[in-house]
């Protein structure tokens, strides 16, 4: 390790000396991390949150000695949510800017081409927001997802349901999305294997703008358990439509939407939030590694309230955390060393909890939380035993009785 490590450090130093814009107060040349983010196009909303997450991490880490005692500089390029641009961007980051490391863009769609490029240049693609199975099926050894991958997202919920409820029929609906759909299927296969029948299973295209019909179809089944693979907009719409239909299932969990804090409350009305569940890889009040400081720093940098912090922020921050720990341990900026080390089965700490990589790069020790709206606040209720969960409301209050 010694000699090789030294050599690598020297190389890397030379490498980034030639490239990355070194505008740091730190005497030593900074460690540069290159990221492509979607600041326009379909993913622009999450793209911005992702960028903020990385920025929060860099600011925090630089305040705590950076990496290897060197400052961290972030090199952002915008990709307009297009894989074409992502490909160009990561090649520029690696071959022109000579960044030391690259981190993941937003969404499974873009992480795939990005990780291929990284792999081509022997870079590790460490990411927190590209957990669709297809990312891990590429057979690339340089991809590492610090978050819970799609298939694991709803597993906590499914286990709880199977353990606490008698098998009933479940209504499923999901957007056709490389992340959401596997997520829903993951839960469905587990529940089916535990005797839960399927009342209805609806997939709807991204372009859908009117959900009333799908909602009514679900309502018509009178299913008492509803599992939805939603993005925020349709997440809101479904609940609004259920209320319109006067249909109040006992258990209602949505992939995304209820986690959006105040905008969710505004959308569905605080009185209706009660009992609604959402899986989450992170939450503001989590006691996990450095979470408190991340939250406070984020609020200092970007304002807003803790409940409005998007999970994208934490996922990006966690990515940075794992990178920091690994590199500080290795004492080198060699990507090959990093790849080997991340594969070595070590467990890292992050704002999203422990991170331990399976051979395909999924985070196998990820235990996604389940949250539930109780009395107008989002409480973590599952898994029991982690952090300080509130007891679950096994039956969702009827609409309007939740506050």
């Amino acid at each position, binding site marked *: 390790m010694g000699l090789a490590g030294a050599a690598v450090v020297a190389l890397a130093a030379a490498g980034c000396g030639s490239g990355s814009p070194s505008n740091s107060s730190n005497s030593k040349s900074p460690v540069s991390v290159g990221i492509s983010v979607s*600041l326009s196009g379909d993913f622009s909303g999450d793209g911005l949150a992702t960028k903020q997450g990385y920025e929060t991490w860099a600011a925090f880490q630089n305040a705590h000695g950076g990496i290897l005692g060197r400052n961290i500089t972030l090199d952002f390029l915008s990709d*307009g949510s297009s894989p074409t641009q992502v490909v*160009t961007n990561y*090649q520029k980051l690696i071959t022109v800017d000579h960044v030391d490391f690259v981190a993941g863009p937003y969404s499974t769609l873009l992480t795939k*081409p990005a990780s291929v490029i990284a792999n081509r240049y022997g870079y590790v693609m460490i990411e927190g927001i590209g957990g669709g199975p297809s990312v891990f099926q590429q057979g690339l050894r340089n991809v590492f997802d610090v978050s819970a991958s799609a298939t694991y997202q709803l597993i906590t919920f499914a286990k709880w349901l199977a353990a606490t409820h008698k098998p009933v029929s479940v209504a499923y609906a999901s957007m*056709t999305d490389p992340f959401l759909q596997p997520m829903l299927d993951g839960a469905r296969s587990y529940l089916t294997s535990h005797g839960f029948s399927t009342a209805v299973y609806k997939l709807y295209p991204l372009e859908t703008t009117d959900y009333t019909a799908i909602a009514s179809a679900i309502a018509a089944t009178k299913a008492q358990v509803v599992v939805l693979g939603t993005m925020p907009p349709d997440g809101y719409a479904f609940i609004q439509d259920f209320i319109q239909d006067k249909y109040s299932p006992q258990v209602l969990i949505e992939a995304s939407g209820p986690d959006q804090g105040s905008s969710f409350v505004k959308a569905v009305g605080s009185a209706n939030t009660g009992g609604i569940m959402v899986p989450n890889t992170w939450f503001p009040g989590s006691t996990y590694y450095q979470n408190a400081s991340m939250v406070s720093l984020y609020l200092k940098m970007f304002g807003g309230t803790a409940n409005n912090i998007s999970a994208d922020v934490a996922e990006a921050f966690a990515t940075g955390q794992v990178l920091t720990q690994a590199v500080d341990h290795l004492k080198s900026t060699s990507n090959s060393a990093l790849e080997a080390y991340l594969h070595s089965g070590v467990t890292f700490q992050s704002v999203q909890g422990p991170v331990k990589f399976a051979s395909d790069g999924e985070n196998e020790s990820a235990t996604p939380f389940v949250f539930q709206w109780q009395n107008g606040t989002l409480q973590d209720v599952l898994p029991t035993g982690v952090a300080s969960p509130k007891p679950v409301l096994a039956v969702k209050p009827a609409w309007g009785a939740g506050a």
Partner: protein
Amino acid sequence: MTATDVTPVGVAAPEHIPYELPKPARWGGTALVLTALVLFPLVFTNPAVTSIGVFTMIYLVAACGWNIFSGYSGYISIGHAAYYGIGQYTVALVAMHLRVPAGWDTFALLPLAGVVSAVLGVPIGFLLLRVRKHTFIVLTIAVMFILQLLAFNLTSWTNGSGGLEMSSPTWQGSYFNEPFYYVGLAGAVVACTVSWFVRRSKYGLGLLSIRDDEDRARGLGIHATRTKLIGYVISAFFVGIAGGLYAPFIGSVYPQFGFDPNFDLAVAVLVFVGGIGTLAGPVIGALLLIPLQQYFYLQFGNANLFLIAYGVLFVLILRLLPGGIAPSIIRLWRWFLVNRRRAAAGAGPPGDVPAPATTPDGGPAGEAEGPGRAGRKETGP
């Protein structure tokens, strides 16, 4: 609107002033551009730059193909992403099922991608070409979305929203892009050559006559439907090839990036900027806009003003260069010639205008509506 109110050339141009650059300039220019393109990756070896080059080539192939139909026939298709997608899925699926090793072998699939697109283009084109220009524009989009939705829904084939992977070649990063680039360049050369042949052929004249006045052309023995369909299929072929090159380069295929509305607009826009219906138009457009756009993203992508700047720039081009860059160059050249002759002959006759708004190819089709309409109206006594 009819040609009547255009100043009669008989008066305007006592001697003929060519509507094209002199032969040496044309051939010299072509040779120059070609050499530049061949040498490009050897000079700029940086992968970030060459990857921009690859995308430029992909769009160049598509643009030339698109222009062969939409440019020459005047039927603007904003749905050719249909074949971009078909090309991508063809290559991905065949490579997957026949276990075609990544690398040079995948390039062997390109003609197949083209052929599949062309074959599917026959029924689709037949259907689309039943309607005339305006409806056609929108109908092409509709068909493109149908295919996109099918790609989402026929999961057993396409793996739906999950998309398809293509294992990428094991080539070194330092020269990974070059093979794609040169294959793309080859494709572009073929596309442009075909475009050149069409423009010069009797068949091409049929297409152009359809652009100007379809009904008149039919009255002169031009089999409009057949002629249009052939053109449509040729263009589908090349766009399919472009898609077939894109898939292995990106390494994955998704419905929304295969059947991509943005691709449609991009191609139409760059051909228009270059000069629709001209030989050089698509080339100029692609070589200019694609690098420019990617560079824009790299430089100013983070600024929210990006979209605004892009839109404004586009409006300006539409406004300042009617008919596109290529015709504008020719207009400039003629203006120069006229002045030189005027200078030679002392003060020229007063009515001596540099160039009418129309040029033999690529000029505006405004008048094309005129006589056509008139012809229609007179049908009632």
